[in-house]
């Protein structure tokens, strides 16, 4: 039987990130990917299409070439708003009346997000060992550092931080700027991929998560494939063995210790550590749920992961033209989020298993291909994701874009509709959720993905979570994987 130090299940960017981190420490690592390509959601540009909060150090390490792009929030009256980080103006170059207020709000949120970013760089704070143990003291020191970061904000700002962190995006945005495409853009960013509307408390946290690295939006040169490739290359450079078309059927457990995996074709590979990019429940099922206590299994089952984003890839016969945008502006991230109120309203139908009426969209135009993330679709609509339901979603989305890009419908030659069900099927993301598990306040930090398992480790010795369901969460950050590897090494498993 082949033997490695560690096996990583799933070659999504987090799996690869974990593998690279272990490989760099001289461990022999094998990455097993079910599908025929690496990268997970970032694999081929069919799903994720932009990068938000990848840290500078990570970019350098991966040698990634990312270019920051504008965001243009489309307005019905063609008074589109062009946004770049904290700067906002009308797309035609006129000054925006709320630019100053927006800049201030954005800067404040970015500053606050910076304080939280420290927490994302390491396993979440926790007090399993008790406050008085050595580990507990170390934790207090770490939290102290965050506290110090807060103190440095100054008293007034610290108070503001403690207020808005628990607040909802809708109020925090509209307290500063009037509702419209600018407010809508922020509100949409707060809830993209989330099972929440901007009025839901906790959405400021998810907005800050997005803004953790300064709040710019990046489009990778060479597309998301380049990001996936960079992660794969980093893993290979670290000596990892990355295998595709190798679906894992079960995790072998001996004496409550991870012993390796068995592939679907019956091949067994031995290892003393197994890291899983799948969600906690899927991972428990792979190992055999009998190895976990009832409470942990129940928590894993009730983890909130309702996918709410659908991906539509529109193949067009020619480049479309959007009203009021010049040639260069077509390369921006285009949003249909006319107001925060409409972003909230867009979420309503999803709650009842209905298709959206006026979905919030994020679009990237790539030549004659329009890549669209449609927010707030039901995880499973009433009657299921039938062909009719998919076709209806496609036509709803096209109808939503059409007023901004007249003639678009006629250009569409093919539509690929990827529903949450498809995303779950393609990537293994629990519930097809963009972030593998809802980024609500009840499922972040010490509570992510589930209370009692926040430190990546599960009850089976040597079995770890390394996917986006673990701390700090979704988006292409590489952090869940990296932190998981660090925790595994710190625990002395290898």
């Amino acid at each position, binding site marked *: 039987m082949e033997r490695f130090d560690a096996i990583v299940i799933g070659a999504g960017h987090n799996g690869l990130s974990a593998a690279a981190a272990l490989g760099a420490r001289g461990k022999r690592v094998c990455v097993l990917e079910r599908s025929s390509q690496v990268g997970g959601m970032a694999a081929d540009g069919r799903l994720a299409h932009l990068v938000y909060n990848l840290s500078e150090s990570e970019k350098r390490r991966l040698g990634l070439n990312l270019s920051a792009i504008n965001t243009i929030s489309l307005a019905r009256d063609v008074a589109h708003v062009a946004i770049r980080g904290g700067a906002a103006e009308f797309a035609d170059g006129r000054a925006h009346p709320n630019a100053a207020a927006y800049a201030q709000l954005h800067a404040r949120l970015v500053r606050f997000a910076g304080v939280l970013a420290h927490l994302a760089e390491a396993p979440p704070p926790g*007090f399993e060992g008790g406050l008085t143990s050595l580990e507990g003291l170390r934790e207090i020191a770490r939290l102290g550092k965050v506290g110090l970061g807060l103190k440095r904000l100054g008293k*007034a700002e610290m108070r503001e931080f403690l207020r808005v962190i628990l607040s909802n995006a809708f109020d925090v945005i509209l307290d500063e700027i009037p509702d419209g495409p600018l407010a809508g853009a922020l509100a949409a960013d707060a809830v993209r991929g989330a099972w929440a509307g901007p*009025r839901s408390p906790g959405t400021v946290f998810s907005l800050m998560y997005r803004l953790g690295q300064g709040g710019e939006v990046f489009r990778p040169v060479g597309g998301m494939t380049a990001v996936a490739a960079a992660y794969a290359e980093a893993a290979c450079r670290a000596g990892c063995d990355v295998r595709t078309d190798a679906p894992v059927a079960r995790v072998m457990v001996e004496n409550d210790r991870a012993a390796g995996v068995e592939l679907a074709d019956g091949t067994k590979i031995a290892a003393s550590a197994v890291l899983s990019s799948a969600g906690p429940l899927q991972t428990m099922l792979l190992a055999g749920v009998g190895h976990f206590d009832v409470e942990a299994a129940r928590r894993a089952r009730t983890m909130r992961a309702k996918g709410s984003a659908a991906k539509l890839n529109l193949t067009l016969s020619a480049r479309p033209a959007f009203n009021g945008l010049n040639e260069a502006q077509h390369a921006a991230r285009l949003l249909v989020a006319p107001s925060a109120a409409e972003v909230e309203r867009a979420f309503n139908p999803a709650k*009842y298993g209905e298709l959206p009426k006026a979905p919030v969209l994020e679009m990237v135009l790539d030549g004659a291909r329009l890549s669209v993330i449609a927010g707030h679709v039901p995880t499973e609509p009433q009657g299921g994701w039938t062909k009719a339901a998919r076709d209806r979603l496609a036509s709803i989305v096209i109808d939503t874009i059409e007023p901004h890009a007249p003639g678009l419908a006629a250009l569409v030659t093919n539509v690929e509709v990827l529903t949450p069900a498809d995303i779950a099927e393609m990537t293994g993301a629990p519930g097809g959720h963009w972030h593998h598990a809802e980024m609500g306040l*009840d499922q972040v930090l010490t509570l992510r993905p589930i209370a009692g398992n926040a430190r990546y480790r599960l009850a089976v010795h040597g079995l770890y979570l390394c996917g986006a369901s673990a701390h700090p969460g979704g988006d292409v950050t590489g952090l869940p994987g990296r932190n998981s590897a660090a925790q595994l090494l710190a625990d002395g498993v290898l």
Partner: protein
Amino acid sequence: MATHDSYDAIIAGAGHNGLTAACYLAKAGLRVLVVEKNDWIGGAAVSRSLHDGWTYSSCSYVCSLLRREIVRDLDLPRFGLQVIPYEGGATFTADGDYFAYHSDHDALRREIARHEPRDVDAYDRFSRTVLRQCRFIRPFLLRNAPDPTSLNVRDLQELLFLVKRAHGLGARELAETMRFWTMSIGDFLDEHFHSPLIKAHLAGSGIIGTGLGVYSPGTAYVLLHHYMGDVDGAIGAWGFARGGMGAISKALGDCLAEAGGVIRTGAGVDRFLVDDGRVKGVALDNGDVFFAPVVASNMDVKRTFLTHTDRDQLPADFTRAVERFKIRGSSAKLNIALDAMPSFPAAPPDAAFLRGDLHASTSLEELERAYDDWKEGHWSKTPYFDMLIPSQIDPTMAPPGKHMMTVFVQYAPYDLEKDGVRSGQNWDDAARKALADCVFDKIEQACPDIRQHIVHAEVRTPLDIEREVGLTEGNIFQGELTFDQLLFNRPVPGWANYATPIEGMYLVGSSAHPGGGVMAAPGANAAREILRRGARRSAKAA
């Protein structure tokens, strides 16, 4: 001729919190004056007779949260306060069935099993969790909220108390507590129960009075806010104040009178008199002026500072924070005089649960949709109501054989939408009648003959509540109970200790920690803070 008297302390507003604060101050020897704009005292805790022979608890209607420490301190039973617990409650379905909530544990288990056998043990798990959370939170209610940004000894002590309590829970319980505080009541119930009807019955407490839906994070805490009270030590129990909720205010008023305090009704505060950052007294809308070194406002924080205080006496960032404070009207109230007990065909004859809280919302989805309507400025076509007939237990509420019914309606927006415009002014008589009709239609699901028995009905929209009681937007908690407005954030960060930027001026209402409900904790806490800061009887006071 206008009056000009001096006191040691003046309380603006004779709501239950204002009266509580006044009682504590008067018992500490201060000469206290309470001024009230209405001709009666009590604020939202009132009993009013609007139809001959009937007494309405016209705003708040049931009692549980009133802190027993305060009842004991002020010896309220001696002033006639009597709280009678009621047992049970029910949710009636459209197909003629019901789910009955019994306070008897075995009866409740049998009833749950009738609907969904899997939920029987789930209920025990649910109530254990809720009870544990109640036990955790209750000690904080009568303490000041710690300011985590402060290095002042008292704040550090309070913070230490919190950390100690949290540490005492153990890691597992602490995680559970953090999760509970941040999740939605819908998700919490979905985790435990299978039956939509049982979930809907239990979810009501998570939304009453708030501008949030059952699936909004934070509503599990709102549920807690409604469970953390007790009647005679039975945690989570609710009861009627004999004679209506005004009995609480009356007892407080009598207690105050005995302690030498003075109440003046019929003239409200026009302006808080502030000179050089220090409060001097109050000027009333009838021209009277009263002076005192300590002035405490029982009005909500917005009304106090945005309407009745000169803006140039306040720091700009404070005013800004007050403007941002969220007080959203989300509920209406119907008070009904009935000529007989209406029939509930689904219920067994003389069912004890009819003496409790009655509802007709049968799924979480129905409740969430009601919230969606509210967000758009409409009342729901299938509103959630919390309906009680207290006259079954308390004969003082209606003539013999006749009954008084109180119906709390969630969600009714303050800024009603009409022809594309959202405004409180849209609440005209037509809108009021349409709302009432809609509620009666829904009540008919439980008692089809309700309309035949109505002798008199009072419909109170959020606008009516605002106008009469003075609660901004008619919000019953004087401010949303969301995380960003609780503990050290209530009412505004940095000013959670009842003091305000104006020296000598305090907040004693529910805008302050720990928030709304007929709890009296903000009033008692504020009085303690006022006394701690050195308010004392002056020799020259009138």
